[in-house]
């Protein structure tokens, strides 16, 4: 029975691969953006999975986990912090991509990526 970490890792990588696949094969800009969102979600899952340590608890200091005993009892808080940052960055990039898609739609009337080929060679 694979443990939670391995399942999470597999899920994460699976999401990433689905996201990449979607970005490479879907022609509509919105679907591409969606695919990338999937992929970054997958990345986040992977990060969390890497950061997990067996038998440990959440990195929150309260009565259950005091400062002195924290080191041996909590998982590494760093990956979780990184995930938060990554989520925010992902939001920013997604928003920007949507803005681009919108402007492109206004100009070309279509969301087909194959239509935006004025710049080439």
């Amino acid at each position: 029975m694979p443990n939670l970490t391995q399942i999470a890792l597999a899920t994460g990588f699976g999401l990433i691969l689905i996201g990449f696949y979607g970005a490479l094969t879907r022609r509509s800009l919105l679907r591409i953006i969606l695919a990338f969102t999937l992929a970054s979600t997958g990345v986040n899952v992977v990060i969390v999975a890497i950061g997990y340590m067996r038998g440990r608890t959440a990195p929150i200091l309260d009565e259950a986990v005091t400062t002195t005993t924290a080191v041996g009892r909590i998982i590494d808080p760093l990956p979780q912090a990184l995930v938060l940052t990554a989520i925010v960055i992902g939001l920013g990039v997604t928003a920007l991509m949507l803005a681009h898609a919108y402007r492109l739609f206004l100009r070309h009337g279509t969301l087909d990526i194959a239509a935006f080929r004025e710049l080439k060679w």
Partner: protein
Amino acid sequence: MPNPILLIAVALGTAFLLGLLEERRRRLAWAISLAALAFLSWVPATWLLALATGQAAPVEILTAGAPPPFAINLRLGLAEAALTLLVNLTGLLTTLYLKDRLLDLGRRAMAVLLVAVMALDGLILTRDLFNLFVFVELTAIATAGLLLLSDDARALAAGFKYLMVAQFISVLLLIGILFAYHAGGTLNLDGLAGAPSVLGAGQGWILEAGGGFAFLLMFVALVAELKPFPANGWALDIYESAHPAFAALFAAASGTAALFAVDKLLTIGGSEWLGAATAIGLATFLIAHLCALPQDNDRRLLGYSSVAQTGLVLVGIGQRDLLGDRYFFVAFGLLAAHAVAKAGLYWLSGLMAERGLSAWAALRGQPWLILAFASFLALLTGLPPFPGFYAKWELIHHLAGADRLAPLGLILLGTLIEAGYLFRWFGYVIKRPPPASAPLPCPIHQALPILVALVGAWGLGWLWGELSGQTQLLLTWPLAFALLFLLLEWLPSWVKNTLAIAGLLAFFAATYDYYDPLRLIFALIFLVGGAIILLAGYATSGQRTGFYPSALLMYAGLAILVLAEDSFQFFAAWELLTIGSYFLILRGQAAEPHALSYLLFSLGGAFLLLTGFALAAQGAPQLALADLGGVPASLSGWVFVLLAIGFMTKTAALGLHVWLPGAHAEAETDVSPMVSGILLKAGLFGLFLLLMHLGRQQLYGIELTHVILWIGALTALFGNLLAAFQEDAKRLLAWSSIGQMGYALFGLALMNHLGWLMALMFVINHYIYKSMLFLSLGGVAKRTGTRDMYRMGGLITLMPLSFIAVLIGIIAISGVPPLSGFGGRWIFYNAILDTEARLPLVILFFAGPIAFLYLFRLIHTVFLGQLKDEHRRVREAPFWILLPQMLFVALLIAFALVPGVALRQVDGYIARFFPDGGLTWDGLSIVSHYGYWNPVSIMLIIGVIFMVVFAWLLFVNRRAQKVKQFNIAFAAERPYRPETTHFAWNFFAPYRKALGFLTLPLATRFWDTLADLLHAAGDLGRRLYTGNGQTYAFHFLAFASGLILWGLGVRP
């Protein structure tokens, strides 16, 4: 000293504070942005000064009050200070340049710009992996944001393609960082670098579970940021469609920061990856330059060039193990050269109304912009005195020392291709008609960044000269003197001419004692000879913009060449004279394609020289020329071949000669004597040095001097033969020069006393009579308006002085006694009696009489025969063009009477190398081992007989009536038009019929085909960039997968 954290804080703060301003206070917002960026430039500037002079030490900035690995730290060392200065300065100047656009867009655009600059600064300063990721993403966001605000709608598509690839990159990077953290236990770069392992200090974490894979992922991601081939379609689209000022920022600043990020990453990785970096960089460099060849959109062309240059810096990074403590010198030199040049070129692009390459001809409206353009191109291709030159010199020498010849060759090949398309563009700028639209607008806020870039380029050149440990080129007298003329362009040309002549003569007088007899001859020809030819410059009135700096640049190169003591000075001088002469030749009316082919051949030869010198130096930074003889036998054959071919490119040996007829023929009247009479001798000078120091060499059993004998003989034959078939007077003379250089090559390769003496006599004689002939025919061409000989005729009465000059010239070349050419022939016959090489001799014997053919054709078709109607009123050539010719005539006659004047000195000097077989002087006779010759007696005897017969004839016909030339009758017809009685076209038809097969332009066809192949390859390559964003994503994935698979194969 200001705290470096201000770099982040001020930028970020100002960006947000701009939001507090009212929407309509745009000018204020813009001014605040400028002020902030000025501050952001001042901070690293002060730090750079302090760090460079040793007053401060690199500092760590702790962001959360706790040391790493518990918090993120930044570092400001020498490299970081320099790089952030570059980034921020570019940002400042871009903001200045974008004034109009930013005022249109409002404060949000300025805020995004500030955030972009901040992100790049952070990328440079950070020492934390995840922080690196954050700043990479911030850069992406800011870049995409600026693209969103661009006024060219195509930039939107570019932005989306960019974001797609950025997403892929961020996924890879993030996974990699996390696995690295998992393996190494820290996110801090220094922590990872110093992690201990059983195998030794550092990089132990790579061996931990997943560590190697992590590094691989991060490496792929960060290298992808550098726009490697093939994953760079998005970058090219950005370069093409974004506002040029933004493209400048993208090229100069983003590229810089990304390169430094890769550099930082490589410090925590293994040295196996350096090879991968080099390979990727080389592929990108070469392919991008190839794809740039067929471009006609200026911004896209610059985009390809940027991509290529980034690849070059990546190669530099990949060689960090080899470069040792010269690493920053080399890498930063290449980087700074690229950044300043690209920024400057993009800023120039913003001034142009159209996108075609020929539209840049509008630059001619403002001469200082031409100077800027030329400087940027020189900076980009690594010509002296700019930093790229010094950096490339070091890199090539280190590569040669470590026997890494494949990267060496590919770098030089790529640079040659780059020089090709960049200087072809320069030719358009100088030669094509400017677009019909209004004169070039150049408002102050756009001119200032360009000016700063220009000053920066020269300043960096000076700085790199100081840091290089070699000769500071800008402080050498000749070059400084030449550059002075840039400032004196406003003076009338006669003033500049006088200054130039005085400068050349003064320099010769000042350095007179430093020359040994051989160098003295060359110095005489280069400097004093140059001064004589410059006399013809007085014939031109006006300002003659651009002539004097170019000409003096060439003479500076020649002057330094003769005085050079080590390979660096020699090579720098060689490139200087190449550039100067290229600019000179380009001034001719129809010279555009010929100047380009001249430049390419010369640069190709120069790069061969560079390789030869680098091989000979065996890892040392330079080689004293006198030590060339000490090269070990395993290398000396190759060094010989490389150096010999390099020099023979300059003397236009057969196969490498295709540039010469066009270049010398199309050059201006007083430029042709300079390049034909003087410049070709530089190649001979090099060959002299080569043979003096290296002597005979063998390669795979082939005696190399023997090969040169054959080349010399064939060159002489074909040069003379093709000269006889030319219809254009100056082309005839140009082919004649090729033939004469073949003779000189032959003499040198004989490797005996008299052979060298003959070559030296050729050097002197050829200078005198070729300059004289070019000046004379140039004067004729000026007066008659054409260079075609069949359009002329009968000019002897109207231009008698020119006729005399040509007459004396052709008698001298033909070698008929009593003039000085005979001395050369006599020495030649004596020289070949000693040699074993019989077969090349036959060819050379054939070449001799053929010279008569073209010599006669020249004088007959131009001066004899019937005068054409349209020329009945031509006057003699201008005085100042005649004066040098008459000087040369006097010199030739003097030289014929007393050849010993120069010969004796040189004979004694050559005796050092070839003690046997010299000449002895017996009174007025010159005696060799085989024969004898008495020039004075010959002259006297012939003179007496001639005078007696002539006088008798004059006396007998003293009462004859002088009739006009047209007063003839033949075959019972009376001629009506001069055109029907002047036989000049296809003069040697029988010879052509007999030997026509020899005149097939095989060499020209070969080189043309090669050029076409390169263009076709480039065209094929660029079709890869189909414009579809998904295709670009595919490229990226292919690149990434390929690299990952390769990496997995390497990892144990």
